[in-house]
């Protein structure tokens, strides 16, 4: 657990997140969004859960970012005009952050260092997925199919 790496990744992710939130241009925001998730994946790597990191990259950067970009493509009208930035949202976010911070700082026993663990191998995850979490896996499978079909239906051109 290299603290240097941690800080670099932290800074990178938060910066990318802020950029995603505040970029005037939509496409830039979307790309920063992708970067944020690469950052988060890096965090996962840092925390020793490579598989999750990879899945994160795979899903978010590979699929969601592309989807978002496509959506931006398909809604050309006011992509440019979107300059305004509502400060009320900012204040609320800040307040929430303050609240969370307060909650985190108040709870004791959080300062412990990271215990040494063996890296979580994909084989372990595979075994657990197939034994303890078989049922949720199937559910997620069904969910994904449903979402897929739903999205298609929503977007299909109504053939009048």
């Amino acid at each position, binding site marked *: 657990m290299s603290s240097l790496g941690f800080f670099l990744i932290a800074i990178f992710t938060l910066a990318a997140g802020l950029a995603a939130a505040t970029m005037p241009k939509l496409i830039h925001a979307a790309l920063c969004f992708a970067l944020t998730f690469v950052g988060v994946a890096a965090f996962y790597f840092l925390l020793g859960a490579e598989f999750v990191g990879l899945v994160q990259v795979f899903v978010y950067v590979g699929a969601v970012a592309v989807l978002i970009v496509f959506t931006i493509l398909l809604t050309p009208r006011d992509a440019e005009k979107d300059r305004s930035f*509502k400060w*009320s*949202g900012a204040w*609320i*976010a800040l*307040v*929430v952050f*303050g*609240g*969370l911070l*307060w*909650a985190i700082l*108040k709870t004791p026993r959080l300062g412990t260092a990271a215990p040494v663990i063996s890296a979580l191998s994909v084989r372990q995850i595979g075994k657990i997925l197939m034994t303890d979490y078989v049922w949720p896996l199937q559910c997620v499978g069904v969910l994904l199919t449903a979402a897929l079909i739903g999205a298609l239906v929503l977007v299909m051109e109504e053939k009048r």
Partner: protein
Amino acid sequence: MSNWIAAHLWLIPVVPLAASFAILSLTNSRRSLAASLAVCGQVVAFVLSLAAFWPTLQTPGYRAFHNFTWFTFGEQALRLGFVLDPLAAVMLIMITLVSLCIFVFSVGYMAADEHFTRFFAYLSFFSAAMLGVVIANSLLLLFICWELVGLASYLLIGFWIHKPSAAAAAKKAFITTRIGDLGFFLGMLWLYGRSGTLLFYDGGNGALEQTALLSLGASATFIALLIFCGAVGKSGQFPLHVWLPDAMEGPTPVSALIHAATMVAAGVFLVARVYPLFSLGALHGVTASLTVVVWIGVITALISALIALAQPDIKRILAYSTVSQLGLMMVSLGVGGVAAGIMHLLAHGFFKALLFLGSGSVIHACHDEQDIRHMGGLRRVMPVTFVTYAIGMMALSGVPLFFSGAWTKEEILHATSLWSPSRVPYWLMLIGVVLTALYMTRQMIYVFFGPRRTAAEHAHESPPVMTLPLIMLAFCAIVFSVVLTPAWPWLHDYLSGERPILNFGLFIQQALYLALVLVALGVGLGILIYRRASEIDPVERALPPVFHFLRNRMWLDELYDRTVLALARFAAQLSDFLDRYLWDGIVRFLGALAQLFASLTKGFDEGGINARVDDTADAARGFGQLISRVQSGQVQVYLSVIALGMVALLIFYAWLT
């Protein structure tokens, strides 16, 4: 045969009733059919009465009663019945015979009237009701028929509806009799309350039989007196006699039938029928109720006799004479001479009917002129009427030997003389007899003797259909005395249930001489006073104030008018006042109060509650709008609300720990 008629006694009243309904259904034009129906009904009733009379002859003290239940309510049963005993039998015969004569007479008398059929319907209805009263074995059935009789009398008195005086007279008759009937009704109720049954004779436990009588005890006198009120009303005794003279408004046969023979006799019959009640606990024949009966009878007799002296109208004189004779009968009943009273009733029925019909034919002849001062000298013009009228007059005034009236009066006087409490009634009765003779001679002189005054100029004898009944009645008046003479007192013994024994020795009695003297005195006085009869009554010339006092019927009507009617009027006005101002006022006041209260609540409700409710409603809507603003439809607003909510939770959590 004998118990058949006893069992079917109800046929006697029903036949005339059926006849009357049949006649009612006929139209005015069917006059001969109506008349024949009525007469046949009466003939059948007469024959049945004879049949009923026959068994009572066989056994003295005969009594056959048949009771039936009218209707049952709960386990109580109301039973009625009819009885056949000497009293009823005799009355049946008298009523049917007299009615028959009157029916035949009225066929001629009413020939000119256009409501001929209706008249006969009422007549047969009346006779049916009268027969019902006579044979009733239950006080209730008697009371029912009693009321029907009253109704019939009202209809008949008020027959000539177009005459306002007739209508008023009918109303007056009906109301005064009803006052009497009220007492009768109360007595009946009281009797029923005490004895539990209204049947007279019910095989031992009837009202008039020993067991029930004993149970009555002290209340018997009061019950008797109350029932006597009914008799007073119906027979026109002292306080309630005012209606009878006015009842003369009706056609003469009506007066003859109702106010001579039958209806007025009902009162006397009632007292005779219910006599055991009166005589309960009699100390040698005298009880409080009987003394009351005596005094009422005496007063009535005297007063009506005096008034009769001053009456100009031929029928009113006869009316007052009837009242006086009824008073006499009441006295005889009161003193204990029940049989004598009934005998006089029967005899009176015949000769009074005769006198009325006679006056009817006189009026008919004088073209409906009723004032005797306009008549006179009819002796030669109407010989039959004159002769029959003379026989009736002599019977009434009690000329001895040949005429029935004398014998019965003599019996009554004899009974009165034996009355222990006081002799005064006896003396007064003697004066009554004299007065009767006096006013009858006055009438004879005015009508038949002296010069032919205005109305009598072109009078002429009545047709045979009218004179025939007169003759028949005159014949009865004379022949009837046969059964009355002390020598062979058949009727007296028949009524009192003994076996008559023929004894010529008793034929001439000491009292007979007394009667002869009295009558002679009366007639003599009459001739002396009224010899030079003229428009102005001699008595009037002699004693004008007394005469006017008598002429106006002792101002009794006006007295009543001022007292009773005034009281009634005052009561009416009082109740009207109360109703109009007091109760109405209260109600209106309450209404106003309610209105006031209503407006108050409205005000309170409107201003107070509604306003507040509206305010809350507005507040709710305002709050609702406030809340709805949160639902702005913008996703970001929702998200920020969630965030703030979370923060609030955190703060709350912080505040908790």
